[in-house]
């Protein structure tokens, strides 16, 4: 069960926060993923590093299929988002929350992360309150640890 391998100490952010505050929190706590909570501490969404970093990516990034012919982003490397962009509410960048319950199966949680291309997934209780978080590594190693029970091949 997810409960057995989840982290209980979760860094999260309130829905009233700005993008700038979310970025600060990620930097200070060195995390790449923040569940977004409403005033009742219910999870209403989530933001990851890629969501914030879309503000950094140049326009050509999404217009071209490959970038093999270039070796540096030049001026783009030092171009920062405009103040108005980082002062917008975090809810404007947030993704809909994909969550698992404490008693969800490990393989189901892993499958869900794979389908949605997530490296972390929030864990919620029956009343939708955030209770923890698991990463792909948490779940993956938990599954692999059960392989110790696999017997040896009979010759």
């Amino acid at each position, binding site marked *: 069960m997810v409960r057995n391998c989840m982290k209980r100490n979760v860094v999260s952010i309130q829905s009233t926060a700005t993008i700038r505050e979310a970025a600060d929190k990620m930097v200070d706590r060195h995390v790449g993923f923040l569940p977004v909570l409403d005033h009742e501490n219910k999870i209403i969404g989530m933001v990851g590093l890629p969501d914030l970093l879309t503000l950094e990516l140049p326009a050509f990034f999404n217009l071209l299929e490959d970038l093999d012919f270039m*070796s540096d982003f030049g001026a783009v490397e030092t171009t920062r988002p405009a103040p108005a962009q980082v002062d917008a509410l975090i809810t404007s960048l947030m993704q809909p929350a994909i969550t698992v319950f404490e008693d969800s199966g490990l393989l189901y949680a892993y499958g869900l992360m794979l389908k949605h291309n997530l490296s972390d997934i929030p864990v919620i209780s029956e009343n939708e309150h955030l209770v923890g978080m698991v990463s792909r590594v948490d779940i993956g190693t938990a599954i692999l640890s059960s392989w110790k029970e696999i017997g040896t091949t009979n010759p």
Partner: protein
Amino acid sequence: MTGVILSSLIFLLTLYLIFSEKLNRTIASIAGAVLMVGVGLIFGFYSESQALATVDFNTIGLLLGMMIIVSILEPTGFFQYLAVLVGKRSKGNPVLLLVLLGTITTVVSMFLDNVTTVVLIAPVTILICEIVGLNPQPYLMGEAILSDTGGVATLIGDPPNILIGSASGLSFVDFLTHSLPIVIVVWLVALLLLRILFRKDLAKTPTNLDALAELNPKNALNDRKTAIKVICVVGFAIVAFLLEEVLGIRPALVALGAAAITLVWVRPPIQETLKRIQWDVLLFFAALFVLIGGLQAAGVMQDLAGLIAQAKDLPPVLLGLILLWTVAILSAFIDNVPVTIALIPVIQGLGTAGIPVAPLWWALVFGAGFGGNGTIIGSTANIVVASLSEKTHMPITPKIWNKRGLPVMLATCFMASILYVVFFAFFN
């Protein structure tokens, strides 16, 4: 008389739906065409066989052939290669970059579909501008305006030219001798004016030139072999277009022949290749032919030409200029294809009324070609660069287009008018 009224109503309704953008233009024209044939059958002014005969397969075949060739060339990265190559060559000089990008977009789109050319070159343009910290607006607008202007030079450069060529019998060579010289002058005027209008943006000093110097065009070319094969076939096709009259073949056969040779030589995955063909454009053309055919069969065109035939007393130069500017203004706001298809029978009607039509065909070519530069919606290339620019920090807005594009359109039409008047005898 019933036929005249009904066919006109159906035609006007279809035009209204297309131009008000209440309905996609292909959907509106197919529905209109079917309605025209149905009503024509009931009231006896139009038959199925007549409708089929109106579709100009020379136009459709030429378009289809060139579209197949482009759809094979597209995934090779050839267009990106060219853009990266000239971007690097410019060494970040803003004006040189505008000239070079404008030139390759124009030259390529003189022979290949200009919308595809712009769609594939514009993203690399944005890339080059972003890595050296320049505003992409002048370059994107320049590519759209200059490629539309350049397309006027050849029979295959622009859909209106294909239509006019087919209806008037003007050949590939006629376009090179009559249209190309005018286009060269007009194109230079457009470039010069863009240079002046965007002088502030073009005076900026680019940064990070190392990033530009390190671009490797060869890596942008994914499939060199196929690209070379396609370019070879296009080269042969151009020679065949030039020899069209000597060989006694029509442009559609040349284009479809070139497409067939490329398909056999390259053997691309056919499903994917055909998916890139703009079938909606081909159907739009076919449906418009059927619609206009209905008007002709009902006698509307004869009535209309009869009205305009009173213009007989006007000096031919003035008639040509009126046509050029009317078409140019119409094309600035609406698609120049329906404008051209609708005016072709009118000009043919004037011909039967005894008015010399040769100069009128050229007026139509110039008006339809240069008029589209006037507004952000004037041509498909304009719409494409504007929508791509929305992804950058500096989107091209209708206001910017009116300030920078409209003057170019007015100047090019004015220049074309002067040359038209001065060399009028040559167009006759």
